């Protein structure tokens, strides 16, 4: 940045300069007088007036350097005038220095203008100064002198005589009460912003840097993020009383961030490679920052120890510094991108404009929309009654039209709200590289994680629910799936294991796949183990398909790891993973081949709020089957139903599948034996299909799940209830349960 400026209005500026020179004359003497006569209010007012007029004029012609300087002088004078500080020699000295500098500054401009005039220029002039260092030290001197006086006076107890109401108001800003209120006001935001920065560093920048330590853009971004955190903690710390129980934690936090920033600045300026050791250190720093944040968030008052991590950063820093830094300058030059490029990068890292809305508000809105969806169904119901029961086809048509109109609006509304709730799956995918990295570090295995479809969108609530299961599955893949390097080489595989994490949309569902090229699941050893542990009998085992065998790992308490490792836990996971996924109407299936690898496929609904389902009737009761479990609906002729061991079977497109009557499952009636053709809903839990016979297949419609409370909540086979357009309550069938019930 060149130290220059353009000045267009030369005549005007010259006029002002004349005025300023007058003001400055005598200012020096007056300030000297001030040292002895600091109580002379007339003298003070005069000095004040002079400086103030310089400030006003310079601001008018755009000489902001002068404005800046004169403001600092004015600010100091104001403090003296209001008796906030008492005068001493140091303060007077620094004031004089500032006035001197200002004087020199103005006369240099004046000389330039004269020079320009004699050369007969054309109306604009460009003036350049090289005195920035001096200006900096003058300003610093002034600030410091004032601060020192403030502190001194505080100790001596000289202040306190505040004059006037205005000062009393200003005094408020120093009270503990004000500070603690402000701190309370800022806390949530402080935590949130830090979490965002830390997340980004951990899950994006460090990953980038690990794959390429020379990624200068990433280094710059890294520095910028830490710099922002530093800025934030600076503001927040200013609101925290040093008596506060969090003060030590936050103070430590600030020190660590500060030191780490210096380290990053060095790396940036010298163009150093972001090596593995530095990456490890960075992760440690992030862990420390997270611990501190948690301590503040959970209002725990025990200090987070700082010395260890601080020491580590400092040692790293001094090691770097001791390496010869001869080329620092030239490195620094090549490193700093052009201003234009910075703007580009900022553009890139900028997220679209947005506002934050609390989840609660969105949920409330969604709930209301759900009610609307139910209410709108009523129109269709009334329309058909008007036609059939009251014989008013004209009226019915009108109501139908209004209904369709409202239908359209509510659809749009629903879609809009839905899209607000959608977030990119990236937010959870981002955590996974760290998970894989940690396992790779602790086991010595080599592996890479490839992520696809990170921008797939899914409902926020689902994201929250799926996060833990996904971490578990990734851990499993990395810890149990991928083999040690030697083993992989001996199998003729690439030394580095590959885990693919993939998300995509298909048929109104989101699919997440976790695929590894590890050792796969050995169905035979699973079988042995299941029999040993008494999960199944030998006879049962023999009749099970490979798919069924593999699904055994979802049984509670079933673990395939020969040794329980620290990383992937004690094998209590898979059943919990499955039940967590099912809780959000999802589904998990496994494909695995020995020595080729394993693929877990999770199917999730786009949203939890509204589902589509098929209404059916059985023994006079109406039920809804969620659409995502329905494979198809068919008519089965009675001849095609066979009995074996008290169970019913049928042939369907070459497969043999089980058959059961819904009324038998819910014990609401017996299966009716009269009809020749039976209506069946074919449902699937991912692994198996089952045909469920019902009396009538009715319509497909949207429904909003209302969970059942109390003792009703655990009825097997029922997942909740919903209202139909005619106001009737119907039960929602849980197909996964139904299949289990039917098999018994």
């Amino acid at each position, binding site marked *: 940045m060149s130290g220059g400026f353009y000045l267009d209005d030369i005549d005007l500026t010259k006029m002002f300069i004349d005025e300023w020179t007058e003001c400055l004359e005598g200012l020096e003497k007056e300030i000297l007088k001030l040292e002895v006569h600091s109580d002379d209010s007339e003298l003070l007012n005069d000095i004040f007036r002079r400086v103030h007029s310089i400030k006003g004029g310079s601001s008018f012609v755009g000489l902001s350097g002068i404005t800046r300087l004169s403001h600092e002088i004015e600010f100091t004078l104001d403090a003296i005038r209001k008796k906030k500080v008492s005068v001493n020699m140091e303060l007077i000295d620094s004031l004089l220095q500032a006035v001197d500098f200002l004087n020199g500054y103005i006369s240099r401009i004046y000389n330039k203008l004269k020079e320009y005039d004699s050369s007969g220029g054309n109306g604009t002039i460009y003036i350049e100064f090289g005195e920035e260092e001096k200006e900096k030290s003058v300003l610093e001197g002034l600030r410091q002198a004032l601060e020192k006086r403030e502190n001194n006076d505080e100790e001596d107890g000289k202040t306190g005589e505040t004059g006037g109401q205005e000062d009393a108001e200003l005094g408020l800003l120093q009270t503990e009460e004000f500070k603690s209120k*402000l701190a309370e006001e800022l806390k949530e935001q*402080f935590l949130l912003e830090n979490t965002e920065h830390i997340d980004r560093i951990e899950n994006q920048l460090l990953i980038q840097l690990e794959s390429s330590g020379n990624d200068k853009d990433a280094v710059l971004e890294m520095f910028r993020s830490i710099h922002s955190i530093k800025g934030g903690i600076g503001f927040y710390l200013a609101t925290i009383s040093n008596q506060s129980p969090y003060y030590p934690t936050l103070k430590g936090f600030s020190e660590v961030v500060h030191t780490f920033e210096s380290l990053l600045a060095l790396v940036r300026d010298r163009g150093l490679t972001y090596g593995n050791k530095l990456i490890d250190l960075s992760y440690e720093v992030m862990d420390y920052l997270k611990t501190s944040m948690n301590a503040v968030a959970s209002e725990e008052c025990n200090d987070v120890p700082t010395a260890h991590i601080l020491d580590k950063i400092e040692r790293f820093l001094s090691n770097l510094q001791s390496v010869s830094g001869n080329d620092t300058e030239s490195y620094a030059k090549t490193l700093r991108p052009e201003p234009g490029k910075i703007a580009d990068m900022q553009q890139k890292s900028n997220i679209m404009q947005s506002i934050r809305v609390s989840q609660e508000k969105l949920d409330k809105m969604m709930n209301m929309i759900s009610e609307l969806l139910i209410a709108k169904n009523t129109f269709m119901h009334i329309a058909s009654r008007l036609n059939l029961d009251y014989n008013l086809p004209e009226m019915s048509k009108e109501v139908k039209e209004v209904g369709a109109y409202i239908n359209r609006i509510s659809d749009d509304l629903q879609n809009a709200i839905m899209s607000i709730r959608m977030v990119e799956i990236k937010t959870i995918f981002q955590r996974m590289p760290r998970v894989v990295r940690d396992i790779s570090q602790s086991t010595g295995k080599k592996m890479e994680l490839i992520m696809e479809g990170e921008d797939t969108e899914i409902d926020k609530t689902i994201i929250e629910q799926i996060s833990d299961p996904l971490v578990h599955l990734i851990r499993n893949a990395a810890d149990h799936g991928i083999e040690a390097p030697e083993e992989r080489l001996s199998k003729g595989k690439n030394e580095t294991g590959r885990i693919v994490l993939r998300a995509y949309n298909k048929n109104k569902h989101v699919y997440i796949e976790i695929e590894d090229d590890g050792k796969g699941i050995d169905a035979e050893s699973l079988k042995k183990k299941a029999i040993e542990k008494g999960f199944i009998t030998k006879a049962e085992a023999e009749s099970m398909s490979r798919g069924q065998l593999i699904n055994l790992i979802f049984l509670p308490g079933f673990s395939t790891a020969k040794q329980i490792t620290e990383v992937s836990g004690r094998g209590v996971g898979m059943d919990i993973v499955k039940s967590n996924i099912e809780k959000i109407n999802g589904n998990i299936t496994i494909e695995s081949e020995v020595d080729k690898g394993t693929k877990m496929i999770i199917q999730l609904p786009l949203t939890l709020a509204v589902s589509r389902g098929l209404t059916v009737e059985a023994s006079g009761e109406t039920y809804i089957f969620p659409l995502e479990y329905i494979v198809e609906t068919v008519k089965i002729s009675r001849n095609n139903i066979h009995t074996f061991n008290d169970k019913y079977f049928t042939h369907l497109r070459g497969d043999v599948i089980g058959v059961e009557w819904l009324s038998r499952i819910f014990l609401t009636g017996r299966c009716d034996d009269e009809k020749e053709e039976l209506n069946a809903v074919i449902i699937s839990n991912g692994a198996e299909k089952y045909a469920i016979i019902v009396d009538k297949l009715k319509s497909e419609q949207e429904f909003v799940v209302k969970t059942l409370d109390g003792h009703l909540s655990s009825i097997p086979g029922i997942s909740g209830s919903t209202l139909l357009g005619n106001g009737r309550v119907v039960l929602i069938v849980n197909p996964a349960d139904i299949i289990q019930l039917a098999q018994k």
Partner: protein
Amino acid sequence: MKQNSGKRVLIVDDSEMVRNFHSYIIRMFGYQTETAENGAIALEKLLAEEYQLLITDINMPKMDGYELIRNVRENGISIPVIVVSTEEEYRSRFSGVEAGPSLHMVKPTDPEKLITTIKMLL
């Protein structure tokens, strides 16, 4: 404090916490405040409505404080501007006498100094 109520201050910073920090303090003294998260949004607001003071950060995505001030001045808006940043940031972007901000304050802002400064400017 009542005499301040008609005065509108625009606060620009990419950190919501920092914006709230300034807003909270400035509102205590009866001024009206509005905020923007980057220079581009701030400029839009400045062009659309009248403000009496602009307080801005330097490092921001989209349009930084330097660009914002340049644009403000180019559009003939002559309100006072306070830049809040570290000394380093200020130096890297503004040279001594360049047409620009009225004032610079060092981060983190001292509430008392902030209010005193605003009172001097308005």
